[in-house]
Structure formats: C-alpha cells, structure tokens
C-alpha cells in the first residue's frame, strides 16, 4: 500500500503567532510517519518563506524570538516531498520566486484544487 498523502497548508505570516512553529512541528511528525508530505503556502503564509528575515543581534536584555523559518530549508532532509506556493499570493504581496529562502513550486488556483483532491488529509494552519 502506498503512503498516505498529507497536505499542510500555512496561511498566516510568521512572528505574530505560533502557527508557523506549530505547523512545522506537525509537518515533521507527519514526515516521521513516512507519509507523503507536502506543504502549501497561501495568502500571508508566503511571508514564512520570505528572505532577509532578521531577528537582530542576540541581546539577553531584550525579548528574543527564534528564527524558526530556517527549518523550512531543512524539510527536504526530513523527507518532505514538495513545497508549493500560490502564485497569486506572491503577486498580491509584491513577491516573486527569487524572494523565497527555499525552492518552492509555484502553483495556480486551479492546480490547488487538484492538489487538495489528491491528498488524503489536509491540515490548515
């Protein structure tokens, strides 16, 4: 029997909430189950992959955030098959493929419908 296909959809921007961190936790567990895992970045979720994120100099007197988005670059090593980014979401936010920290497949709305129908399970964050 072939592996079940799980799609994790991230729709929120990083740092204002823990959605990205907690989506990554779930994605890594999905990959550890040897599921066929894909990730789709939609709407403000595309900002998760934006380059030039700068958390500033570590200063113990200031509250520090973790630059968790680096983990997206390592997903391939954990067996995550494919990252998808909706082209419209990038366009609407003045972004292009070259602004992303990791190679992702650009996908249009029609292909997203196919993507969703091909997956056994969809988690939205």
């Amino acid at each position, binding site marked *: 029997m072939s592996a079940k296909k799980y799609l994790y959809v991230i729709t929120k921007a990083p740092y204002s909430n823990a959605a990205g961190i907690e989506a990554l936790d779930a994605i890594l567990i999905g990959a550890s189950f040897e599921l066929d895992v894909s990730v789709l970045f939609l709407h403000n979720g595309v900002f998760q992959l934006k380059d030039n994120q700068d958390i500033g100099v570590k200063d113990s007197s200031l509250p520090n955030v973790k630059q968790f988005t680096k983990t997206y670059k390592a997903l391939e090593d954990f067996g995550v098959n494919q990252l998808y980014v909706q082209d419209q979401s990038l366009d609407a936010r003045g972004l292009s493929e070259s602004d992303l920290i990791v190679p992702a497949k650009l996908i249009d709305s029609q292909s997203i*419908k196919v993507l969703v129908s091909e*997956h056994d399970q969809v988690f939205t964050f």
Partner: protein
Amino acid sequence: MVINRSWHEQVALFEPLCFAQSGDTILLLEDAVLAMQSPITLASFLAKCQANQISVAALLDDCRLRGIDNKYPQIDLVDYTGYVDLVIAHDKQVAW
C-alpha cells in the same frame, strides 16, 4: 469536502473557493453565517459556487444564535446532525 470558515471580512468568504471544486460543499459555520446579512457579497459568492457546482450550506444553530434568517434558496440549512451527515458524505474536510 466541507469547508467551514469564521467570516470576519469580505475577502475571507472567497478564500476557501481556491480549495473547493465540483461536488464539494462549503458549510458556513459560526461567524461565517453573518455573510448572509451582506446581500451583494453573498450573491457574488453564491454565483461563483454555482458556476463551479459547489453546494453551499449553513449551520442552522449558528444562524439562530445570531438571529440570522436564510433568505437564499441556494443555501441549505443543516443542524448538527446534518453537519455530521456532510462529513460522512465527503471524504475529507478542510477547515478555514
């Protein structure tokens, strides 16, 4: 597939449409039912759904809680038992 979405702003109502395709049902749940008070937005939403053979339902209990009447024959009102039936009838659900 059932998509439920708390409706906070006009654009949010249209976002799930990028997931839904022919044969799917979009269920308006919680604050999503408030869209039924916005005739222009809703008419355009219903037209898009109809063009793509997507059914639209709304949760009766959430409508009643908020004093919302269904004036739209295209929207099927369902109670929680109907919600369960929708989940059983579709192989997966996408929460929005």
